[in-house]
């Protein structure tokens, strides 16, 4: 036994030794509020989880108010980081400026919007952008109701449409790319924030068709087939490869986070962003996101470094 050291039991000495033995660098604390796109959320949630295991005192709250909702809170100074599935809009920038909130933009991943049909669907292996437009444009509402109206070669099967809610960045992006203008879409589809409903809906109807982020497709490959998209250069299916190299057009898109520069002065926020940037490949893989290609990853690193210098 080491009972002999008992003589040093003096309160003052103990206090000093306690202070010294505290790890000076590691233990960060504080709360980091993050909100925004539900598409980006899983990536940040995974990052938050892993980071949280190393820094249990740092409290990360991740909300999913949607890209716009996230910016709203962000520019009101309520959150430290905004998640976005599209670049910030000018109005939103103005709102941030009005509140003197400086921010930076970091591209953290790539998404491939995936058009899915059920396994029983054998005909729609590849659709052109025009065909997708024919299905989704406002003029189709109440008119294009069966597959043979899209292409006479397709069977006369009822067309059942599913998609994300109108308030998501995904909807905005898809409508812009396919219908040519943001938020322009037929209204008689089943919108859902809940991708599970899209999966179930499409899988449950022979003539079903829907679209959502690539992640969800990966999770449900057993139930759904991804449609190849032909934007003029032949049919390309969604995959990490095609999204990264840009051949999956027009439906691949960048995903961002926007840190508040002032908030970056807090060590725990910097630490989190640093951690995310340093481990972006593993995190994205873990969250089943399409990772950045090397150039994109290099840009992320330089962008985040310059943000840190801004914050001082």
């Amino acid at each position, binding site marked *: 036994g080491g009972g002999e050291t008992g003589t040093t039991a003096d309160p003052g000495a103990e206090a000093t030794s306690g202070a010294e033995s505290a790890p000076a660098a590691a233990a960060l604390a504080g709360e980091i509020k993050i*909100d925004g796109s539900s598409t980006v959320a899983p990536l940040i949630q995974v990052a938050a989880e892993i980071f949280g295991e190393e820094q249990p005192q740092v409290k990360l709250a991740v909300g999913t108010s949607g890209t716009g909702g996230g910016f709203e809170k962000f520019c009101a100074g309520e959150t430290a980081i905004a998640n976005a599935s599209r670049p910030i809009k000018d109005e939103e920038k103005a709102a941030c400026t009005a509140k003197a909130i400086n921010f930076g933009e970091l591209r953290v991943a790539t998404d491939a919007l995936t058009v899915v049909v059920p396994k029983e669907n054998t005909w729609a292996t590849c659709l052109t952008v025009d065909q997708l437009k024919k299905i989704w444009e406002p003029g189709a509402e109440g008119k294009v109701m069966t597959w043979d109206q899209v292409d006479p070669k397709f069977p006369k099967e009822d067309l059942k449409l599913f998609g994300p809610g109108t308030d998501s960045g995904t909807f905005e992006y898809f409508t812009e790319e396919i219908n040519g203008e943001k938020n322009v879409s037929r209204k008689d589809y089943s919108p859902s924030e809940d991708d599970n409903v899209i999966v179930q809906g499409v899988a449950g109807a022979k003539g079903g068709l829907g679209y959502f982020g690539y992640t969800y497709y990966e999770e449900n490959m057993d139930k759904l087939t991804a449609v190849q998209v032909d934007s003029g250069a032949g049919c390309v299916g969604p995959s990490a490869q095609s999204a990264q190299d840009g051949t999956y057009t027009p439906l691949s898109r960048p995903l961002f986070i926007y840190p508040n520069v002032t908030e970056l002065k807090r060590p725990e926020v910097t630490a989190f962003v640093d951690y995310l940037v340093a481990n972006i490949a593993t995190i994205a893989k873990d969250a089943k996101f399409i990772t950045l290609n090397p150039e994109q990853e290099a840009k992320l690193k330089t962008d985040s470094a310059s943000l840190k210098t801004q914050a001082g």
Partner: protein
Amino acid sequence: MALLSTPRSQVDLVGKGRPIREHLFRIALLSSLAVALIFLGLLLAYTLTEGWPRLDSRLWENFPSVRRPETSGVLSGIAGTLWIIGLTAVMALPTGVLAAIYLEEYADNTKWYNRLIELNIANLAAVPSIVYGILGLGIIARWLDFGFTVMTGAVTISLLVLPIVIISAREAIRAVPPSIREGSLALGATQWQTIYRQVLPASIPGIATGSILALSRAIGEAAPFLMLGAATLVRFNPDGVWSSFTVLPLQIYNLISQSREEFHILAAAAIVVLLAILLLMNSLAIWLRNRYQKRW
């Protein structure tokens, strides 16, 4: 004299086949009640079987995780719910009871403003909870600048249950017979002495029962939190009233929305936890009522 007597034949008191209709009616009534109860049973059985595989300590010891559904739990939701309920109890119950005392013991309801208060309370009890969410968002979070914190959630929920607390407390107070009040006042007690020493002690069991039932409604609310954008992935417990938080019903809503089957099982298991808390509170209410209810 016998001539005046009613003939024996006229004195037949046998019924005329009424019982069958009566029985059918009774059975119809009973089965209506049964339908509601069967639903309750079915619902409990369904969630219990669905959630069974995940009904273990992982559920209440772990924080939610998107990476590992198998170890994911709802600890932060349970903690958030307890915070909200605790604060709601502290804010809504005293306010509600005081308001009920005012309305029952002081308010002269020939006065327009007292009638307005009453009508207003009845009306608030019917206002959809999502509208309270708008109130929380627009006034409490933004205008009062409480942000998206436990405090905002608790104030919103307090306002939501306040009418229910007031209504049930009024009933409990009204159940105290007027003769008790008269007896006290006739001895020269002031009105507040009468209330504090006679009316309140006699109505406490009723008030407690009503309050518990009101709080058990608060426990299940999700809609206002949806409006308040309470964070969904919270991997910590609130450490104060100005902390971020999530609540159990909102977590359940989010788990249901996940596409992975594991999360649905987790949702069912979380529902069982929520229902268990609820049943516990209800049993407490029933016990209180049976134990202390006064029959005048």
